[in-house]
């Protein structure tokens, strides 16, 4: 159902609250309460995605603090997930959930077993673990259940064999399959994997070798594009995902010390770069401009080639789209605006309001789709709204809830600042300065003022 109420009457705070709460609702609607697994998308028969579970675990504390769910309900859903992963079968054969402490990317919502012959995913396991650590940090109460959450969180994190995931190279492999072994994808260039490296280096039991982070950062490219000095990463989610858990403002690794910048500032500039790209709009896509921008990983209209206004384009289904080097098929990921909110609040809020004014039909009760493509309006089989992704994706909803919260209260950042694993991982990756110079704060315990 499209959003009908005009946003003009709402303050920024009220508007963000509506978007955040709507996104939060995704998790309560799609979670299987028996095992805590959360669907990858809201579409029928969607399997669970382990990364989406990581986002869900990170969002429950926000729901509690905002009064959208009770602490007891959050404890139950969190425990269900942690107990499930803890008891799930691991191994190199069939009918398992994971291997070496990592998990398959997509799991059956009911049985929790691998589906689609998907891969054991390193980065998605890292996103799951980030959520597990949030749960362990947030549920610090004295009760038995909260104590169990803390124990399970620690055990799940510590049993991961990160060194195995390096294969025979210094950088981490992206995935593994039982028949073909490690996937043949390299890590080249900056992307969303900082959280993966931080968690892997922090492991007390099986950390990656000391050269892993440096080997990855050796592939970084520092570029001056459209007048911005940026560490380049094409799709915007690369500048958002690790930042959902870690506040990179003011802390620097060797690379950022050399460049006299930090990763938070880099995400800010990258957000502006995306806006600049849309202003250039080299391919002449409909709507692109000052307040419609944001290319990212997400759903798309499908794989086909078509000419639009006498220019040849290739449209894609689910894909990572990037600026300024592409690919770009005119598909905008509107959840990019709340997801980049902490870095560039002014332009993100303006874009979010523009979206509500100009394209209200793509917004479902303040819930944002994975993508939409106005260029396809009244073309091929598409109607006057162009293409709009059906339903919602859990990753998008999760990053929206978390980044709006970080913008409003910094809740998740603060929780993770006190986490010893995160601090140790950042330290081993060479991060210094900023909040890392201050001692870890006391463990947060529930009732907080987050208004």
């Amino acid at each position, binding site marked *: 159902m499209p959003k009908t109420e005009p946003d003009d009457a709402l303050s920024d705070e009220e508007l963000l609250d509506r978007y955040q709460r709507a996104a939060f609702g995704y998790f309560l609607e799609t979670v299987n309460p028996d095992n805590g697994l959360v669907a990858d998308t809201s579409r029928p028969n969607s399997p669970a995605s382990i990364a989406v579970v990581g986002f869900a675990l990170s969002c429950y504390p926000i729901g509690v603090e905002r009064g959208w769910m009770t602490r007891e309900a959050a404890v139950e859903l969190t425990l269900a997930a942690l107990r499930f992963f803890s008891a799930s079968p691991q191994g190199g054969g069939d009918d398992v959930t994971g291997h070496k402490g990592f998990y398959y990317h997509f799991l059956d919502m009911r049985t929790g077993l691998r589906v689609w012959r998907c891969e054991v995913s390193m980065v998605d396991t890292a996103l799951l673990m980030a959520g597990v650590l949030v749960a362990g940090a947030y549920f610090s109460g004295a009760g038995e259940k909260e104590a169990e959450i803390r124990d399970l969180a620690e055990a799940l994190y510590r049993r991961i064999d990160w060194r195995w995931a390096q294969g025979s190279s210094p950088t981490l492999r992206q995935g593994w399959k039982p028949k073909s072994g490690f996937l043949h994808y390299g890590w080249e260039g900056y992307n969303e994997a900082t959280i993966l490296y931080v968690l892997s280096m922090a492991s007390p039991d099986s950390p990656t070798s000391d050269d892993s982070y440096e080997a990855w950062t050796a592939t970084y490219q*520092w570029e001056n594009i459209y007048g911005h000095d940026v560490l*380049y990463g*094409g799709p915007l989610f690369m500048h958002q995902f690790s930042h959902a858990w870690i506040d990179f403002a003011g802390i620097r690794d060797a690379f950022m010390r050399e460049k006299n910048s930090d990763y938070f500032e880099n995400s800010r500039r990258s957000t502006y770069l995306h806006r600049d790209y849309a202003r*250039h709009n080299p391919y002449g896509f409909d709507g692109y401009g000052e307040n419609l921008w944001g290319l990212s990983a997400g759903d798309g209209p499908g794989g086909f080639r078509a000419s639009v206004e006498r*220019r040849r384009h*290739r449209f894609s289904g689910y894909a990572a789209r990037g600026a300024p*080097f*592409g690919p770009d098929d005119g598909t905008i990921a509107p959840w990019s605006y709340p997801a980049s909110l902490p870095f560039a609040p002014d332009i993100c809020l303006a874009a979010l309001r523009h979206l509500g004014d100009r394209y209200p039909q793509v917004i479902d009760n303040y819930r944002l789709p994975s993508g939409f493509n106005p260029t396809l309006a009244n073309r091929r089989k598409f109607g006057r709204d162009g293409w709009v992704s059906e339903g919602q994706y859990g990753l998008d909803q999760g990053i929206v809830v978390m980044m709006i919260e970080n913008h409003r209260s910094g809740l998740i950042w603060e929780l993770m600042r006190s986490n010893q694993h995160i601090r140790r991982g950042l330290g081993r990756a060479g991060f210094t300065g900023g909040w890392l110079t201050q001692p870890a704060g006391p463990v947060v315990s529930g009732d907080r003022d987050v208004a």
Partner: protein
Amino acid sequence: MSRERTKAAAFPVDRNDVDLMRAAHPPHWMNPTPDGRYNLVVIGAGPAGLTAARDAASLGAKVALVERGLIGGACVNVGGVPSKSIIRTARLYADMRDAENFGGDVPERLHADFERAMMRMRQIRQRLSRADSAVAIASEGIDLYFGEARFGGADTVEVAGRTLHFRKALVATGAHPSAPAIPGLAEAGYLDNESMFDLTQCPERLLVIGGGPLGCETAQAFCLLGAKVILAQNEPMFLPGEERDAAQILSDALAREGVEVRLNTEVVAVRREGGKKLADLTREGDTTTISVDEIITGVGRSPNVGGLGLEEAGVAYDADGIKVDDHLRTTNTHIYAAGDVCLEYKFTHTAEATARIVVRNALFRGHERLSELVVPWCTYTDPEIAHVGLYPIEARRDGIPVKTYTVLMHDVARAVMDGEEEGFVKIHVREGSDRILGATVVASHAGEMINAVTLAIRSGMGLHALADVIHPFPTQAQGIKMAGDAYRRTRLTSLRRRLAARWLAWSRR
């Protein structure tokens, strides 16, 4: 030196080819009779051998040049010349197809005439080979021998029953297409990036194996000439070694043209069935079978080191080619090597550049070094991808802080006018300075544009000075200057701005 691998094609195809053979390997050629010791005996009359023989002869050296096949080597006969000729026709069809984008009409009947494209290629090949005909070379005072050359010892070469004594020798025998070890491929029959030029009909469905420069150029050209092309690459991206963004743009361009892109895909078996070739493709453990009419491999080139008697001459080599030091000397100090037979980067222009080094080092006791060459290269897809110097990843691994100044071609006015705005100019400098370390250009004419950067690196010119080089407006090469302008803008520190503003304010009084 072409190697026949399929019966689908046979050289010479037409009169152009016959004329080419007559000039490049005359059927009744009389080898000269050696008259004393040569200053330089050159084995192989490709770009390296021809350059060395001519340079040496023009300086008064007594030179012998030995060729077993056609003069010109791979480049003119089965490499850069024929492939780029075909690519030109392919671009024509792309432009006709996109005519509306340029304000024109798409021709009513747009059907690629493959036969004519190949005939044009053969005409061009024949025309360009004329300059290097056997008669022309002999007239320049070079003793030209046709036949298989073989070292008889440390200072002699045997050819067609004659013994050539030398003071110095140069091995410039080039390379041949590598044969991928795929079960059933040889039995089913295939073409490689040399024998494919003998095709007279465009295969309806074509599998191209290998996503390096050869595979990508071939896939795009055949796609535009009407074939349904599947391009299988066993790596996660095309052009391994090039910058990620360059490979990304190429990948998008190939997909947009209609090439079926299969990355991370290994061709594990091939068989023939009912006139078709069936290929098993494996990706992440899952295998699918495709049916095609022809298979072209473009997986790289292996050095021609067999049958030369290199062991007798004390010249060491392995699967990568002849071992040379930085002065291009082999393990026999009187014997040098140049070009594809010894170089990692197998290009015509490096072959010629290394040949020049050999002439100076071998005949005039020079000390020129291979490592001091500034070598650009280009992949002739659309857009082209050209590079010179260091990649950022190489610089960072050497501990050099590097910063890249990027100009998007869609900001270059002429590129927009030409409808060729895909791509970028990236110039890499040492952080904190304007010293140019390298550059990558992705653009329709990247191969032409990269020359300005090569010149700047070679002459020690910095990016700051490059901004002062006036480029005619409008040209696509302005993208290079614009990178210099971007550098200048970042040097305008707030202090400089404040000082300039104060001076200007004072000037107004």
